[in-house]
């Protein structure tokens, strides 16, 4: 019924940390199947912005609608949205006291009320997809950073989300492990998953992004296809930023 409607609609979103104005009126729509890459210097509010999508951060002014549900103070809406939105963190945030398999099956069993066998079956498929099937019985502390991040992606996918948020998924990784995580994300994008990715991985943005956005000081300053963004940026700020990262 809502297939045509954009999955994320954010209108004039404002947020304050005490007196610090982090988001100063950000508006954005994300369509289904789109892969959006958000770039920007640290402190520009890009992480804060995508964290408002699943209510990890509250916003004080404006409106955010995810999959037709308005995000406000209504706890039920927040829970409903969190079930539909998957998130991958910079620091992985795997649960260190649970095995890889338990990490992945935890939410399907307790939130989606799947049977344990069913959840484990799905989990094993996902682990195969991200290429670490043999690590299922290990604990997160025994895995490399790249493997942990792939488990984190599988954990989010297990909830069968309609959209995946990636908050700097490769920033905490050693250089040689970045590729294995990006490959998984690439594959996911090609399968048609809607993704919002905060990242500075230019190659990834060029390869799969449908749109690239630059945020600075709590505002969106540039938005366009990868070609437009990297070849013909409109604003001076974007040119300056690109000269620093390219």
């Amino acid at each position, binding site marked *: 019924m809502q297939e045509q409607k954009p999955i994320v609609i954010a209108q004039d979103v404002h947020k304050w940390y005490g007196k610090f104005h982090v988001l100063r009126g950000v508006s954005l729509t994300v369509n289904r199947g789109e892969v959006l890459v958000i770039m920007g210097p640290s402190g520009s509010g890009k992480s804060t912005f995508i964290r408002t999508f*699943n209510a990890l951060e509250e916003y004080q002014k404006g409106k955010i609608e995810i999959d037709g549900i308005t995000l406000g103070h209504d706890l039920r809406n927040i*829970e409903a949205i*969190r*079930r539909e939105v998957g998130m991958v963190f910079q620091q992985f*945030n795997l*649960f260190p*006291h649970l095995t890889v398999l338990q990490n992945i099956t935890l939410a399907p069993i*307790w939130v989606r009320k799947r049977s344990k066998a069913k959840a484990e079956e799905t989990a094993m498929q996902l682990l195969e997809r991200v290429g670490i099937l043999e690590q299922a019985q290990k604990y997160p*502390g025994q895995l490399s950073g790249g493997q942990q991040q792939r488990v*984190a992606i599988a954990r989010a996918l297990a909830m069968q989300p309609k959209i995946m948020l990636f908050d700097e998924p490769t920033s905490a990784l050693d250089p040689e492990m970045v590729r294995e995580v990006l490959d998984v994300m690439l594959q996911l994008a090609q399968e048609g998953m809607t993704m919002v990715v905060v990242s500075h991985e230019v190659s990834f943005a060029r390869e799969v992004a449908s749109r690239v956005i630059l945020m600075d000081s709590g505002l969106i300053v540039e938005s366009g296809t990868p070609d437009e963004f990297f070849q013909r940026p409109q604003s001076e700020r974007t040119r300056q930023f690109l000269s620093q990262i390219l």
Partner: protein
Amino acid sequence: MSNNQQPNNPKLNLWRDVRFWRFAGQFLAVLIAAIVVAILWGNLNRNLQQLGIQPGFGFLNSQAAFDIGETLISYAPSDTYSRALLVGLVNSLRVMVVGIILTTIVGITAGIARLSDNWLVRKLALVYVEIFRNTPLLLQLLFWYFAVFLTLPKVENPISVLGFIRLSQNGLELPGIQFSPEFSTLLIGITLYTGAFIAEIVRGGIQSVSRGQWEAAASLGLKPGLAMRLVIFPQALRVIIPPLTSQYLNLAKNSSLAVAIGYPDIYLVASTTFNQTGRAVEVMLLIMTIYLTISLIISLVMNLFNKSVQLKER
């Protein structure tokens, strides 16, 4: 390490040899300890002789001749001292076991309440913790006993709480169980006192789990209650258990304050035994052995529990 290469060097003077000093140091320590013990032992024997006491545990088999108010196992004043001490031990263990269970519940509840998003709950928990932590347990026991239990109505018209708990001068009555005022006081006292400390331990443990864990759990759609149960608390446990163990030990040791309100625990029975027989050394050894054994058992059990929690990570 260079010393090890010179064992055969005949020129090394004794007083320059590290090994000599290591040996001498230990020898000296043993010597001093031995001299001190010998002096104290000599004094003890002389003093005991003057008092006309023959050391030995034989007195345990003679008749105790005092009554004990509360017994779980059969006892009469005509029984022996060892039987009386056993009654005391059982009474002690009873209050320790029930106390540890209750104080864990109270402590965890208050610790979680300290972090509640409900302002009133948070503040009430804070007030509880700060009041009970910062006053002596002995005073709390005296207060509960003399100012609360003894001023309660007579047993004929008890105060009824929630319909099934009945409070009166005769103590606390649950359907089917009757607790004496002494037992109830001691239990309430050590439970609330230790619970305040456990609350702070639990709060610290929960706060030690990184914010990212909450966020990851939330972003998977786990509600706060489930996130606490499945993700946060199991991790907090690793931080909580070691200090929790020492609180359990404190509770076990503090149960000896029973003497202040006349609950016949092992300490009270032992000191009564001392008053009647004057056998200071033997009674002291008994008290030491019993409490050290109990402490040891609690430590062992908690260490096992700790290991099972810690092992999960690797």
